[in-house]
C-alpha cells in the first residue's frame, strides 16, 4: 500500500497533467457528441421513417470494439487528440440520440394536441413543450455517454492523445501495478464524479412542477 502511495507522490505532477488531459478530451468529445446527437434525435422525430435506419447505423458504430475504432482513425486522421476525440464522439452518439428521440416521442400526445390547438408553431412546440418535457430523458442519455466517454478516453493514449491512459500503458509496459493504479483509479473517480455532477445538475434544473408526483 505504501508502495502505491510512493508512486502517487512521485508521479503527482504526472497524474495531475494526465487527469487534466483526460478531462479536456472527454469534455470536448461530449460537447461535439451533444451538438451532433441532440439535433439528430430531434430530426428523427420529424422524419420517423428514418429513425430505424439511422439509429441502427449508429448502433453498428457502437459495436466496433473501441480499440479497433481507434486503429481505424490512424489512416484517416493520423495520430493525436483529433482522431481520439472523433472516435469518442462516435461512441457517445447512440445514447444521446436515442434518448432524445424516445424522450420527445414519449411526450403526452394530449399536451401536443393542446399546444397545437392553442396556436403554437412547430418551433414553439419544440422549445416550450417537447424539449422541456423530454429533458430528463435526454439528460439520462448524456450521463450514460459521459461515463462511457471517460472510459474510452483511457484507450485514446494508444493513438497518442495522452490522458490517464498514458499512465496505465506505462504501468503495463513496466509491469508496475502502482503506476497502473495511478492511472486507473483517477479515471474511475472521474467517471463517478462526473456522473454525480450531472445527476445533481439534472435535479437542479428540473422544473418544480415536474418533481411533483401526479395526484391521481
Amino acid at each position, binding site marked *: 500500500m505504501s508502495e502505491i502511495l510512493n508512486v502517487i507522490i512521485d508521479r503527482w505532477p504526472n497524474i495531475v497533467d494526465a487527469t487534466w488531459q483526460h478531462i479536456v478530451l472527454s469534455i470536448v468529445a461530449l460537447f461535439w457528441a451533444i451538438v451532433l446527437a441532440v439535433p439528430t434525435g430531434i430530426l428523427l422525430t420529424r422524419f420517423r421513417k428514418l429513425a430505424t435506419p439511422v439509429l441502427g447505423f449508429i448502433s453498428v458504430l457502437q459495436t466496433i470494439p473501441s480499440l479497433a475504432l481507434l486503429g481505424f482513425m490512424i489512416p484517416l486522421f493520423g495520430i493525436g487528440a483529433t482522431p481520439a476525440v472523433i472516435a469518442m464522439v462516435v461512441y457517445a452518439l447512440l445514447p444521446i440520440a436515442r434518448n432524445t428521440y424516445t424522450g420527445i416521442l414519449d411526450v*403526452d400526445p*394530449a*399536451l401536443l*394536441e*393542446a*399546444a*397545437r*390547438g*392553442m*396556436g*403554437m*408553431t412547430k418551433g*414553439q412546440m419544440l422549445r*416550450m*413543450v417537447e424539449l*422541456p*418535457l423530454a429533458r430528463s430523458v435526454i439528460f439520462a442519455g448524456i450521463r450514460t455517454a459521459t461515463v462511457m466517454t471517460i472510459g474510452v478516453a483511457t484507450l485514446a493514449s494508444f493513438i497518442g492523445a495522452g490522458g490517464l491512459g498514458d499512465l496505465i500503458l506505462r504501468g503495463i509496459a513496466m509491469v508496475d501495478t502502482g503506476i497502473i493504479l495511478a492511472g486507473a483509479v483517477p479515471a474511475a473517480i472521474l467517471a463517478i464524479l462526473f456522473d454525480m455532477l450531472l445527476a445533481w445538475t439534472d435535479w437542479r434544473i428540473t*422544473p*418544480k*412542477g*415536474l418533481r*411533483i*408526483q*401526479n*395526484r*391521481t
Partner: protein
Amino acid sequence: MGNAIVFDNVRKSYGQKAVIPNLNLSIAEGTITVLVGPSGCGKTTTMKMINQLIQPSSGKIYVNGSNALDISPVELRRNIGYVIQQVGLFPHMTIEENVTLVPRLKKQAGEVNREQVDRMLQLVGLNPDEYRHRYPRELSGGQQQRVGVARALMSDPPIVLMDEPFSALDPITREQLQDELIRLNQELNKTIVFVTHDMDEALKIADQIIVMQDGHVIQQSTPEQILRHPANEFVRGFIGEKRLTSHLTQSVDEVMVKHPVTIAPQKGLAEAVKMMVRKRVTGLIVVDKDGTYLGLADSADIHARYPEESLSIRDVMRADAAVVNVSTPLAETIPLVQQAPYGYVPVVDDLGRLRGLLTRASLVDVLARPYLEGGEEHE
C-alpha cells in the same frame, strides 16, 4: 345576431372513405351549440375543422365572416379558445404560466396582464392567490379543467371549442362545471362549440343541439324541440333509451313507498280517522298481525259508514282492490296505478305480505325525474 361559424358544403375524406360526406351548418353567435352523437359520428372531426386541426378535403368554413382556410392555422387557433378532454395543462409550467400561454404566444404587450389572470381564475372559481403559483399536478382533475377553461378564455376569443371537456370527471364535478359553464356564458356571451356523446349533458347546457350520425346532421334545434319533436327514430333512440326505457325496466320495489301507513282489521273507524289525520293520508292499508295484506280502507268508505259505531275496519275495507307483486316490472304497473280508484296500489310478495305501496305520485316522480334533473342518476 349573426352566424359565428358556417360550414358550406364541407367534405372530409380519408382515402376513399368519406367521414363527412357533405356538411352544411351554421352556428349562431353567442350561443352554446352542442354537437352530439355516438362515437364515430364525425362530431369531433367537425369541431376540429373549425380551428383547422383537421383540414377539410373540400368546401368552405367561415369563421366570423372570413374564410378560415385563408387564415394561417396558427393565427386562427390563437383567436379560438380550445379545451380538450385530457385538459392538456403543461406540467412544467405554473397555473399562471399555463393561463397566460396564448397571450405569450402572441407576444401581447410584453408584460403579462396580471389582473386578467386573476379575473380569469376567479371566473372559473379558483382563488388566484392560492393557485397562481401552483403546478397542474398539485390540482384535482376538476380544478385542472377549470384552469383549462381559464386558459381558453384568457385572450378573450369570440369562439371557444370544447371537446368532451367534462367527460373524464366524476359525476358531481361534471355537474358543477356544467352549471358554471352555463352561468359563465350568460356573462361572457361567447360562441361555444361543445362536443359530447352524452345527450343528458347536451340537453342541459345547450342553446342549440346538433345531432350527428355517420357524418350527417340529423337534427339541429333547441333542446326543447328535440325532446318534443325528435326528427327520426335515431334521435328518439338517442334521447329516449336512457330516459324512458331504462327506468321502466326497474322493478316495483325500487320505486314503491316502503313503509305505508297500515292498520289492523279489528280497529274501529274513529281510530282509523284519527290515524289518517295524524299521518296525513287518505287511505290505510289493512294488514293482520303477521303483515299479511288484507285490503284497503279509504277515507271515503270510512266516512260513509262512520255513524255505525260497532263497525271495525274489517267491515269497511275493500279486499278486492288490485295488488301487484313486488317483482313486477314497473312498466306493467303503470296502467294499474292509473286506473286504481284511490290512486294507489299495494305491493305484496309471493306470500301475500305487504311490502309497500305504489302511488301515482311515486310514478310521476320516476317518469319526470330524467326530464327535471337531466337524468344523471341513471348514469
